[in-house]
């Protein structure tokens, strides 16, 4: 199938309970409070492509990442993996084997007491992809080679490696269960640019070689531009603009996307004062009415304060904004 859907989010929401402990709550006569980290999000990732999510800190990216691999159960809506609901298949190891996650922090996510060989071999053993010791060893060796490490590195412990090498180990481990779908939550944010270039090149090579599908999360728009086929821009739990990455970078439609692009530091302009996205960062506990972006939006009108904008198509790009819908965005 040319356009097989690997992962779909259908109207997914996720709430966190942020109430104070019961007794304090009762004493202060407060009701329960919940924080809507993800609000009615839908997207589709086609097999072999990269869907990227960008947005400010706290907008819900990592929460979507966790929902996508089944670490959280959506409060509403469904995550489908190859057209099957993840919730119904949670118990199926076959499906769990086929999706994996790479975390931002290559230091915290590797067990410091295990040798690299055992770290990489663990999924192979857990999913019984190989059982004979020399078969397991062979697989570990070829995984390490895939990510540019050597078999000898397998005898060492994580602390003996640099940040970039540890991220290579995490990638080798993530690949060990032979997944088709990888969620990468800020995989290079902890790395410096020269190592980042090596890791991003490696991820693209692996995608081509193994036909991997990526959900790629980053707050670095230049990195996203380098990696993404499709792009979703998040604001306070919602995707406010999504479509082909090139189309969005060529002509961002949503006022928030435009501000984000303007806020990027520019190497060409040394000493330039950036335009920070002005205004208050709204609280996800009590999000603003109507369009949640309205307190910071230069194009906001009365309608924006009361009416939540719907997703409408503008060419290939889906945007949720009254100004764009009314054609007063330029």
């Amino acid at each position, binding site marked *: 199938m040319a356009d097989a859907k690997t992962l779909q989010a259908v109207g997914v929401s996720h709430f966190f309970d942020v109430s*104070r402990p019961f007794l304090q709550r009762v004493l202060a006569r407060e009701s329960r409070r919940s924080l809507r980290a993800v609000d009615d999000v839908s997207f589709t990732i086609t097999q072999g492509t990269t869907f990227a999510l960008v947005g400010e800190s706290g907008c819900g990216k990592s929460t979507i990442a966790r929902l996508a691999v089944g670490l959280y159960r959506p409060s509403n809506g469904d995550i489908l993996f190859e057209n099957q609901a993840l919730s119904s298949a949670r118990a199926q190891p076959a499906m769990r084997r086929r999706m994996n996650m790479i975390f931002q922090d290559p230091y915290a996510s590797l067990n410091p007491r295990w040798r690299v060989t055992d770290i990489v071999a663990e999924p192979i053993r857990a999913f019984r992809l190989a059982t004979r010791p020399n078969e397991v060893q062979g697989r570990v060796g070829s995984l390490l080679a895939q990510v540019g490490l050597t078999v000898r590195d397998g005898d060492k412990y994580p602390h003996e490696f640099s940040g*970039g090498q540890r991220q290579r180990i995490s990638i080798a481990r993530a690949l060990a269960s032979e997944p088709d779908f990888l969620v990468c939550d800020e995989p290079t944010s902890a790395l*410096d640019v020269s190592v980042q*270039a090596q890791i991003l090149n490696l991820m693209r090579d692996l995608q081509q070689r193994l036909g991997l599908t990526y959900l790629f999360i980053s707050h670095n728009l230049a990195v996203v531009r380098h990696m993404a086929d499709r792009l979703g821009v998040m604001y306070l739990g919602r995707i406010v603009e999504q479509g082909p990455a090139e189309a969005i970078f060529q002509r961002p439609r949503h006022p928030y996307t435009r501000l*984000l692009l303007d*806020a990027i530091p520019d*190497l060409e*302009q040394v000493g330039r004062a950036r335009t920070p*996205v002005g205004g208050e960062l709204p609280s996800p506990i009590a999000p603003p009415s109507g369009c949640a972006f309205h307190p910071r939006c230069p194009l906001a009108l009365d309608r924006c304060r009361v009416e939540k904008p719907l997703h409408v198509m503008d060419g290939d790009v889906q945007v949720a904004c009254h100004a764009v819908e009314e054609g007063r965005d330029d």
Partner: protein
Amino acid sequence: MALLDVQDLTVEFPTRRGTLRALDQVSFSIDSGEILGVVGESGAGKSLTGAAIVGLLERPGRIAGGEIKFDGKRIDNLAPEPLRRIRGRRIGMIFQDPLTTLNPLYTIGRQLTETMQTHARLSDAEARRKAIGWLDRVGIPAAAQRIGAYPHEFSGGQRQRVVIALALCAEPALVIADEPTTALDVSIQAQIITLLKDLTRDHGTAVMLVTHDMGVIAETADRVAVMYAGRIAEIGPVAAVIRHPAHPYTHGLMASIPSLEHRVSRLHQIDGAMPRLDAIPSGCRFHPRCPRAFERCTNEPPELIPAGATSAACWLHAHG
């Protein structure tokens, strides 16, 4: 006179297999009101430089040579107690890992008010009001409502901003910020950078800003030092280092940054990795990875020498 003056700083780790030299004769200074950017691959020695300045080298690491002057007085040989008083009040630190700085058992409000109250006489109500103000300034939404929350209730980026508030709330003269915005997205980053710049302008605060984000350096720093394998490879005014890098390593570093303007199929990469401390190459320590290495590079280590508008440790710039 510079507020911070570091001369020939050398840091060593004695190990069973011999002594590892992690910093080798590092020299630089920072004036009041100035921001010095420090860039380089992980393991280059950026964090160690910051740790050595504030006397927080992890054992068995020790300063094996050179001196550090703060406000005209040596601080590298101070006893722990006087040093502790300078640290925190006169020198603020923002560490790379927010989780190690925040106490998971206390609310963030308590951590902020306690920090301010150890450095200044403040009533509880005043301290609380100021704490909310700082949370606001670093962009924590609904600060007044979330002041009673615990660190784990915040997203990664929000925790980092709490750490920044914690370092700045005592209003120090020098701020050592180790990758303060690396985990943050551009808009919050812009806000934090603006805050740091305001502090330097309005209060004459000096900042040592460690980051690998050249974009942040470009718009924030006055000068930048590029570190490689425990030494400074190049140092100079930020515009010169970015536009006309004199050291081949700086050049490669600049080229490996993905661009917003156009998409390339492969990013430029500097092949190989920085050497381990027990296997520092002879001569110029960058020579095994350097596309322009020549014979002299393999046996003579270069010192920083003038190279156009910057200074670079590279034999290409030695004339005569």
